[in-house]
């Protein structure tokens, strides 16, 4: 994220870094033209969205509101995010559950129909290929949403295992929901506003639950989940109905729910202590190190049977060598790759995400430290531009979560 004012200006005015500007002149940038657009692209631009390249898509980083105001408004009122760049996927067939359980750490069999969980796709070494929200629609239909930036590698991984599974007679197939768009509606007004647009009683639908229902006259997949720590929903809507739905949600909120970009989305998830894959979790990070042991079902811990289970189960037993923790700090906001030292100046780890919290008005960060330095209240030093600043290990989430639970 570090660059001169010039680079920042460029990124925010949706210019891609170009070595030789002259050859491109002032025509449309070739690399911009290659970016994929969601069906709401024009709507974003009309509403003042500053479009930036993100995981191969042109997405709004913010609208007219500042990132600070947008973040606070999500927690006070609500936010509407276009997250159609993310990849929705259905796995179907009578052997779907045993197939998927080879690839993820979740107890998918143990999920009640119509419920879901955060999970992790692992590799043979126990590292994370991606994180995902997995929902059991029925015993032979699983709905998943994976990260845009991981789409190609995730799909290749699933496909490879699916081929071999099917060749042994397993019954599973997939459908990639490219015909749908995905909207995230988050914040305290999410439920009351969405209730205007559906006959289903949302007060009976709790965090992690899933339904297929009509919203604003269109058949939608609704999951009570999100990436902000607030109550809210992710709505998978047929793409031809996405614009009408986005407009209806904003209108019904009387302007209180506001279009919100990726910038505030990142602040919100950081305040909520949620991992960003690629920053806080990578190929070499295990779910145990990342603090996601809770997402490994009891049965899965006993039985294993997922990629890298040996490594992961051994780590659960012996304890991981490094752990993801949160920090408050003084000085400039820590950013990814800032060094973490103990109070004697010895290296103990690295920051993976950090920034200024718009809601707490102070620096928050997460990163990995050697076990032993991970306890809440441990004083650390965080090195930024050669100077070391005081930090303290802090419980996450930084801002209390408000998930709607019975």
């Amino acid at each position, binding site marked *: *994220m*570090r*660059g*001169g*004012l*010039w*680079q*920042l*200006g*460029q990124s*925010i*005015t*949706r*210019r891609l870094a170009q070595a030789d500007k002259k050859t491109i002149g*002032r025509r449309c*940038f070739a690399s911009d033209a290659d970016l994929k657009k969601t069906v709401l692209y024009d709507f974003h631009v009309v509403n003042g969205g500053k479009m930036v390249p993100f995981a191969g898509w042109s997405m709004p980083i*913010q609208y007219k509101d*500042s*990132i*600070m*105001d947008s*973040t606070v408004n999500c927690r006070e009122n609500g936010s509407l995010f276009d997250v159609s760049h993310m990849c929705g996927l259905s796995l179907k067939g009578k052997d779907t559950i045993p197939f998927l359980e080879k690839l993820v750490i979740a107890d998918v069999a143990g999920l009640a129909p119509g419920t879901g969980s955060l999970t992790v796709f692992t590799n043979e070494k126990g590292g994370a290929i991606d994180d995902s929200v997995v929902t059991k629609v029925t015993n032979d239909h699983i709905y998943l949403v994976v990260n845009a930036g991981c789409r190609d590698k995730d799909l290749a991984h699933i496909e490879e295992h699916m081929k071999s599974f099917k060749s042994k007679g397993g019954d599973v197939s997939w459908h990639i929901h490219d015909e749908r768009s995905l909207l995230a509606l988050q914040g305290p007004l999410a439920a009351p506003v969405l209730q205007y647009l559906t006959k289903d009683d949302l007060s009976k639908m709790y965090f992690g639950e899933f339904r297929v229902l009509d919203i604003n006259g269109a058949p939608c997949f609704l999951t009570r989940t999100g990436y902000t720590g607030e109550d809210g929903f992710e709505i998978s809507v047929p793409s031809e109905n996405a614009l009408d739905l986005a407009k209806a949600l904003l209108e019904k909120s009387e302007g209180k729910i506001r279009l919100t970009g990726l*910038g505030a989305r*990142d*602040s919100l998830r950081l305040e909520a202590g949620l991992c960003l894959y690629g920053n806080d979790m990578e190929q070499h990070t295990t779910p145990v190190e990342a603090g996601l042991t809770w997402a490994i079902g009891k049965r899965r811990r006993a039985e294993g049977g997922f990629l890298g289970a040996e490594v992961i189960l051994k780590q659960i037993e012996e304890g991981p060598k490094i752990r993801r923790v949160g920090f408050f700090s003084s*000085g*400039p*906001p820590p*950013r990814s790759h800032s060094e973490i030292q103990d109070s004697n100046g010895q290296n103990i780890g690295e920051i993976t995400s950090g*920034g*200024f919290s*718009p809601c707490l*008005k*102070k620096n928050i960060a997460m990163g990995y430290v050697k076990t032993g330095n991970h306890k809440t209240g441990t004083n650390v030093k965080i090195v930024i*531009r050669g100077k070391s600043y005081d930090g303290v290990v802090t419980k996450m989430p930084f801002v209390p979560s408000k998930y709607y639970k019975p």
Partner: protein
Amino acid sequence: MALRMWASSTANALRVSSTVSRTNFSLSRCFSTVLEGLKYASSHEWVKHEGSVATIGITDHAQDHLGEVVFVDLPDSGTSVSHGSSFGAVESVKATSDINSPISGEIVEVNTKLSETPGLINSSPYEDGWMIKVKPSNPSELESLLGAKEYTKLCDEEEIH
């Protein structure tokens, strides 16, 4: 710091009207203010040369693109800066950006108010949000910088792209 930053976003909204009283200013297409009489670097810093001292800060256009500034890292008085090299950094909610010195020289004063009130860079980029004062060692460097018209053009081009 926090409360002051909220104040700064309000000041931001009022920015255009508060500068209208000036006789010499131009409003670029991107609605950022560019002042006549200052020199500008293409990396979005400004210099105001008065007598033996030159004051340096970042432009309205730069602060507008950065968003709310939450921290400013500045060098100590008495150290030297050189043309085109980074002398500090500004932190906004999302990003860290280097600040380059448009000229070479010795720092004679640092705006210490910015450590408590970094939002001054948003609310008053050309006045209260100044960063350092420098005694130029090579005044001819000023000639190579952009004038207000050229800088306005640069900002407009950036907006188009």
